[in-house]
């Protein structure tokens, strides 16, 4: 794969550069063998376009170095006229230029590796029908747990569900007049939802690694993301209709269904009773408790409890300043009444 373009490029260049091309090929493939030595390959994401881009970059730079070499040779003659100072200045310039080239090459390689949006592209390759089907599937627990169930490694649905949960949470916080002291409403909502999605996914992935379950990180992110669909429905309904019993029914019913689905999929991918118990128990507990937390932490009823809990923690000078006139008034009134009674 590598030799064909190199040969084409070599054919188009001046004859003086032919020897360079031989050396170039040796560098890349270790002696012209057909086997590509993987140790020498950069760890790209597998796109061969990046390798081609690197090769073109090197070709361009060798061209530039050659041109520079010629220009440098012309300049050297001038430099000799200037004596030692001219030579050192020109050498310094070449060194600086070479360092700039190396730095630019490394920076562009790092940029194309990490800021390459194409890394995420395969995870967003979905159709609306598929998303809708997966949303509905996330509420239906599978029956077949002896055969590993397929999990689609897709990130569009989970990401949209997390953002929807953020929007619902904001609505709930606002209608219940939650007062956030250290931070903002928006920051709290985003931090909670994304923190849960990423944090619990990583934790369960780590547990799955310990329990020898067959699941990758992207699949875990996708599974937990779709599991938030039940949370979205429950919170959307119960933030608008404030009945505690309704919330408990939804918590057990809808939350339970989505938890059962996630647990069934994980069980189908784990071997051994203890491992299954650990993994699924943890996931079920965290998922159900999160829904409980979301309902109670941002709900009107708890507002009163929060206020009474925070009462004794208020700064003392405020309480004293407020209480003294009241107390003094009360004392004055009672003494006045007592005095009036005795008189």
């Amino acid at each position, binding site marked *: 794969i590598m030799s064909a373009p190199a040969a084409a490029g070599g054919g188009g260049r001046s004859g003086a550069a032919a020897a360079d091309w031989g050396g170039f090929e040796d560098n890349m493939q270790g002696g012209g063998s057909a086997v590509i030595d993987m140790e020498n390959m950069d760890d790209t994401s597998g796109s061969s376009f990046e390798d081609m881009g690197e090769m073109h970059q090197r070709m361009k730079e060798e061209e530039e170095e050659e041109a520079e070499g010629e220009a440098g040779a012309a300049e050297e003659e001038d430099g000799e006229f200037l004596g030692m100072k001219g030579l050192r200045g020109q050498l310094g310039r070449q060194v600086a230029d070479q360092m700039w080239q190396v730095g630019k090459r490394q920076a562009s390689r790092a940029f194309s590796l990490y800021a390459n949006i194409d890394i995420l592209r395969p995870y967003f390759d979905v159709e609306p029908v598929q998303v809708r089907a997966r949303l509905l599937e996330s509420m239906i627990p599978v029956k077949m747990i002896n055969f590993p169930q397929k999990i689609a490694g897709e990130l569009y649905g989970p990401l949209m569900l997390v953002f929807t949960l953020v929007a619902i949470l904001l609505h709930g916080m606002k209608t219940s007049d939650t007062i956030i002291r250290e931070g*903002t409403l928006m920051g709290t909502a985003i931090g909670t939802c994304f923190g849960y999605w990423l944090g619990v996914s990583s934790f369960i992935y780590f547990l799955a690694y310990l329990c020898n379950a067959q699941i990758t990180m992207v699949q875990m992110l996708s599974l937990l993301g779709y599991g938030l669909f039940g949370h979205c429905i429950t919170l959307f309904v119960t933030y608008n209709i404030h009945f505690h019993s309704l919330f408990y029914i939804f918590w057990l019913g809808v939350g339970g269904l989505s938890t059962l689905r996630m647990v069934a999929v994980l069980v189908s991918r784990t071997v051994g009773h203890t491992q299954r118990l650990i993994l699924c128990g943890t996931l079920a507990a965290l998922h159900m408790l999160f829904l409980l937390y979301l309902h109670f932490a941002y709900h009107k009823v708890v507002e009163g409890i929060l206020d009474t809990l925070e009462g004794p923690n208020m700064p003392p000078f405020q309480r004293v300043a407020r209480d003294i006139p009241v107390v003094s008034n009360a004392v004055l009134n009672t003494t006045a009444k007592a005095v009036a009674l005795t008189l």
Partner: protein
Amino acid sequence: FPGLADVSISEDIPVEGEITVPVGSRSPDEDYSTLDEPVRDTIMRDLRAVGKKFVHVMYPKKSSALLRDWDLWGPLVLCVSLALMLQGGSADSKDDGGPQFAEVFVIIWFGAVVITLNSKLLGGTISFFQSLCVLGYCVLPLTVAMLVCRLVLLAGSGTVSFIIRLIVVVAMFGWSTLASTAFLADSQPPNRKALVVYPIFLFYFVISWMILTFTPQ
């Protein structure tokens, strides 16, 4: 350019812009001539461009002018004015009921970036800044709604004013979403339009929610 073959513009888009035929050879001085013009000309040219885009947003017929000559002045002005109007205005720091300036700013720009990344990942043919430009300009109806809400709240804050505010905000939210969809959805493969429209809907929904629940302290 194989990628450009996928861009489909429907035939009812009016072609607009300026056609200038270069006369003779351009001397190097012409390239720098905008430095010598008075500041008023520069500002008026930019203001006129921004104003033309505002008109495009308010009457969203399918045109490519917004996409071709993108600029971020309009979104900046709209974002700053919206954030200023949405400030809580409460001197009491204990009761942070309203969104702060920085919060609104970050939400709008971060949300626009996320939607742009999403549309690019889904295979869109629109560039990063073009998408930011369109999303920013389509905040204009919601800024108008915020202005109207503030005026209505000056009159009183009862149930009637809430209903008026609700109607105005919902109407403007629908207008914003439709306007941005008219510009952005064309750049997507036809069967994935719904996947791109949903985050835009969510984005403008959050901004509308911030406007509707705004209560002056």
